[in-house]
């Protein structure tokens, strides 16, 4: 039987243009999401293969809020399992990342030992001591593996799913997301480091944010303030399988006639040369793809957003912690064959993105603004009518079409 909390009741007749606020702060909804989405038929980002370079390498992470360890076994294959001892439920792996020299993962509590696949290898005093105690004779170690995660290595990125019903990864992500995955994973990557952000907002507000090209030039004012970016750059949004999306910007398609609309609108967006950068080297970069795309932000629901913003490249992992908080883990990368010059560009441009990013630090803030204000009136809804009421792909930025698509897919996944 499907349990449908009252909070998940969509207002009648609105399709996907109105989302009730109660789904952003209800524990019931949150728990149902963990069951139906994160533990359901979805692929969740776990790691880059570059973070598991050797036999015995491991990394601790999460699927939703379930702690998961991803490992490279002695057979060189990638495995993942829930980080919870099959004996008494204790956390097994206590480090963020590292290497198990002997390939064993041993719970500190009673030293039950597991291998990289999550299979139980050893139980201390299984046969008792001096003929006393021990596990029953019929105790079968093969029946006490860790809860295993099905994994796939797609273009050097590791995804995991708990469900047997999750389709193959390319079918799951769709044609355009798959294209952009292959584009950005064009060669072996080098991880440049992580940054972590803890945000007092519901994780779905961030999903909306990363599918929302409308806010980019209105909330993020670094570029317009310094006269660098204009809302009229060419680009658009693409939706794959409702819940995944691609936001892209092309530098060569600037249309001056559109600028006049922005100027006459007198929004904050267009400020010509109000301030100037004292050091323009922040913007220095190199063209590194065989196209004119300068920014692409694509998301693989529910846990991953990938970006190329100029020469910065990152995986952003969305980790829900409860109905009111999530963590955002950024993994920045370049390519193993980067020139010294390109690497320098990347490191300097990291000022633009991430928790202290000059052009996008506001995303966490906007999420918190929403969370603070929806405490009551859960049956009130937002308004998602920019660009019409339809779902799907648009060839411009003045749209909330990808967000409407998200809610369409969300309702399917949640069965409401």
């Amino acid at each position, binding site marked *: 039987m499907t349990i449908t909390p009252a909070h998940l009741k969509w207002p009648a007749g609105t399709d996907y243009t109105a989302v009730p606020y109660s789904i952003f702060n209800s524990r019931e909804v949150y728990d149902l999401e963990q069951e139906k989405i994160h533990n359901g038929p979805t692929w969740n980002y776990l790691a880059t293969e570059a973070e598991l370079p050797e036999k015995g390498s491991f990394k601790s992470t999460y699927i939703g809020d379930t702690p998961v360890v991803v490992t490279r076994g002695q057979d060189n294959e990638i495995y993942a399992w829930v980080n919870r001892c099959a004996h008494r439920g204790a956390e097994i792996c206590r480090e963020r990342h590292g290497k198990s020299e002997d390939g064993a993962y041993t719970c500190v509590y009673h030293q039950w030992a597991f291998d990289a696949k999550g299979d139980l290898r050893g139980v201390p005093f299984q046969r008792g001591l001096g003929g006393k105690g021990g596990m029953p004779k019929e105790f079968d170690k093969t029946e006490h593996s860790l809860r295993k995660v099905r994994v796939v290595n797609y273009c050097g990125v590791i995804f995991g799913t708990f469900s047997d019903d999750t389709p193959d990864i390319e079918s799951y992500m769709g044609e355009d997301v798959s294209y952009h995955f292959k584009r950005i994973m064009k060669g072996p990557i080098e991880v440049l480091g*992580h940054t972590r952000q803890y945000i007092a907002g519901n994780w779905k507000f961030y999903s909306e944010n990363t599918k929302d090209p409308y806010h980019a030039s209105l909330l993020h004012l670094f570029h317009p303030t310094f006269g660098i970016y204009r809302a009229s750059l060419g680009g658009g949004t693409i939706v794959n399988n409702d819940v995944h999306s691609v936001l892209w910007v092309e530098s060569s398609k600037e249309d001056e006639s559109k600028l006049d609309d922005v100027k006459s609108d007198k929004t904050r967006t267009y400020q010509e040369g109000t301030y100037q950068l004292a050091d323009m080297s922040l913007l220095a970069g190199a063209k590194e793809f065989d196209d004119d795309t300068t920014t692409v932000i694509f998301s693989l629901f529910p846990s991953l957003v990938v970006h190329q913003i100029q020469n910065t490249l990152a995986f952003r992992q969305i980790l829900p912690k409860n109905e009111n908080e999530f963590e955002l883990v950024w993994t920045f990368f370049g390519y193993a064959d980067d020139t010294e010059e390109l690497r320098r560009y990347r490191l300097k441009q990291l000022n633009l993105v991430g928790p202290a990013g000059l052009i996008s630090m506001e995303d966490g803030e906007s999420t918190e603004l929403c969370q603070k204000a929806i405490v009551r009136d859960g049956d009130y809804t937002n308004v998602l009518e920019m660009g019409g009421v339809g779902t799907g792909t648009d060839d411009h930025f003045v749209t909330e079409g990808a967000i409407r698509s998200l809610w369409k897919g969300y309702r399917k996944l949640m069965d409401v």
Partner: protein
Amino acid sequence: MSNTNISLELKNEVNQLLDAYVQCIDDDNLEHWPDFFTENCLYQVIPRENHEIGQPTAVMWCDSQGMLRDRITALRHANIYQVQWYRHITSHPVISTEDGNTIKVQSNYAVFKTCNDGESTVYNVGRYVDVIVRENGVLKFKERTAIYDTHRITTLMVIPI
């Protein structure tokens, strides 16, 4: 090089620089913050987890006084964030120098952040690793690296550490 070879005058001078730096930030005199650095400098705020394994990703990374000024211009005129105040508490520094001209300094810091709701939280804790030089008679940071333990940044970081 041991501390014993450092004159009391130099120690005092270094201490004054460190104190004036945090006072400048906490008093919201951010327009003067870049003046604590040499023209060519390195200021970075880097999570300890990256620093420990030699990964270069920092949340702030500026290699000129101009970039520091741009941070402040953006903070004042472009970036959007809730009203917030910092309060830095710093430890006594450990000071060493080989030649008396380039001074290496390390100190611990804790930054409390207070927002409009009136709650003060421990926002960022770590250590400063500095290279200090004398420029026109005045001590300045040639390098200041804030290596932070609090690797989970709450919401965002807009004000420098």
